[in-house]
């Protein structure tokens, strides 16, 4: 449940609940529980931008799922003639090393999406924790946390990527995607933390939170039972933003050479294409497909983030606000 679905319910319930008694028969019960289950998705389709973003993202997920089970050729095997342009046998040609580009794209989709999603989820969890705690803590704790958040906001992300990346490179151990994800989460949580801090500060001043303080609820209970629910749209919106950062950061990490270059993902594909100056010798089929797919993925995340912000931020939806006043009166 979110403020948005609430607003909806107000409209419906004027003649739905107030006049009739709620009758819960079998079919409508199933229907309403289904509706509840898909409520978050339902919200995403409400705004044109987030709807478009959702479609793009689902297409990407479908592409990645196919890539897990099927690729035309082994994605990382040097099987073919080098630098072949697209043909019937090789839909997107071959790389300068003789790998099939289309197979690499398919196989690289899942890890790319996984990194985006895991950075999105873990980064959001950290920023929710930090932001909500600091928004609801005493003034001193709040200021200290705020200071730390500001440090991470001010330092350019690429510097931290470089520093942490060089550190992990120095370890000289193959840890798969773990260092990449750690680097991206540690550089990507601060923005969300600032957002959650200010949202929590404003929510915690509302009467229904004061009321819970008065009846003796503990802070943790208020945070988990009430505040998290109130700021859910912001959390989801921030997830998409952080996932976008994760995807972008992956390309940075790979481009700077601090990632794991043996893996196949869209970031490493770009790295190898660029390193072999594919752009100079006209091998567009090697560099453009991963570049476009990464852009589309990030575009999908941004659309979802921006669309959700429009839904969650009441100031941006003028017409609905006016209606609400009428209903109240």
């Amino acid at each position: 449940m979110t403020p948005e679905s609430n607003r909806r319910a107000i409209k419906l319930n004027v003649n739905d609940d107030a006049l009739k008694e709620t009758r819960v028969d079998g079919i409508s019960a199933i229907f309403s529980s289904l509706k509840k289950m898909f409520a978050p998705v339902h919200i995403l389709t409400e705004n044109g931008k987030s709807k478009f973003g959702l479609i793009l993202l689902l297409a990407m997920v479908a592409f990645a799922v196919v890539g897990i089970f099927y690729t035309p050729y082994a994605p990382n095997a040097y099987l073919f003639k080098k630098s072949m342009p697209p043909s019937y046998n090789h839909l997107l040609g071959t790389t300068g090393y003789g790998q099939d580009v289309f197979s690499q794209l398919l196989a690289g989709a899942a890890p790319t999406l996984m990194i985006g999603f895991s950075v999105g989820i873990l980064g959001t969890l950290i920023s929710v924790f930090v932001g909500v705690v600091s928004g609801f803590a005493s003034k001193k704790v709040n200021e200290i946390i705020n200071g730390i958040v500001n440090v991470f906001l001010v330092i350019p992300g690429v510097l931290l990527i470089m520093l942490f990346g060089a550190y992990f490179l120095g370890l000289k151990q193959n840890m798969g995607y773990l260092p990449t994800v750690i680097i991206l989460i540690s550089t990507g949580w601060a923005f969300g933390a600032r957002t959650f801090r200010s949202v929590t500060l404003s929510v915690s001043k509302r009467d229904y939170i004061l009321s819970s303080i008065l009846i003796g609820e503990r802070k943790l209970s208020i945070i988990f039972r009430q505040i998290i629910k109130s700021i859910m749209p912001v959390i989801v919106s921030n997830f998409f933003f952080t996932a976008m950062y994760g995807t972008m950061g992956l390309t940075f990490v790979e481009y700077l050479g601090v990632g794991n270059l043996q893996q196949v993902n869209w970031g490493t594909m770009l790295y190898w294409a660029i390193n072999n100056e594919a752009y100079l010798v006209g091998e567009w089929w090697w560099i453009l497909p991963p570049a476009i797919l990464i852009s589309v993925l990030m575009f999908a995340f941004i659309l979802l983030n921006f669309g959700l912000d429009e839904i969650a931020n009441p100031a941006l939806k003028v017409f609905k606000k006016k209606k609400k006043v009428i209903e109240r009166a």
Partner: protein
Amino acid sequence: MTRSESVNALQNVDMELNQNELLGIVGASGSGKSTLARILVLLYRPTSGKIIFEGNDVSNLKGKNLRKYRSQIQMVFQDPYASLDPFHNVEWHIKRPLVITKYDGNINERIDSLLEQVKLTPPSQYRNKFPHQLSGGQRQRVYMARALATNPKVLIADEPVSMLDVSLRIEILDLLLSIKKSLGISIIYITHDLNTVSMITDRIYVLNQGRVVEYGDTKSIVTNPRDSYTQQLIKAAPDPYKKIEVD
């Protein structure tokens, strides 16, 4: 350049509340009456002075003792659209204080009886509703049931009816009276509206700009105000029997 100064919303306010009394606090907006309510439930701390509750100074309570004190003093907010959590239903709102204060009877039955107490009958019809499915008056009743669930000794009602339709106000005020009678608790009714105060309260304090200007028995003050501010307030209150003269 602005300097931050703590504004003294209340000065030299000296009040007493007797047991099982309905006390009115009257003042125009800006007179400090909401601040007073929030100080009484210790949402704000007084910069100086004391709050004595049952013989003990409570103004510096912390932690467990603070929670215990608060469960005995509950507050009803002005805006029933803001005081209920939109994400939880009626049952949750009443259940939480029961769980927190470790109510040792049957919680379900207690919820029903509380709902009946605030005249939301039959309770089964209201338990699963969400705030947005209720009218303003119903919300205020739900909120009172929540406040009563902690079994308080004092109930502070801060402008509980000012956001409601006029037709609903009497019902809520009646409810305050019946709560006082049946539960034997003390109620502080805070308002700017002299009409409703004179209807239900036993005694009143009149606040002006953070100071008590007059106090005493409600009837004698309303009929025979001594302070000029009180006189203005009474003059300003709409009198349904007064005829408006039109040229």
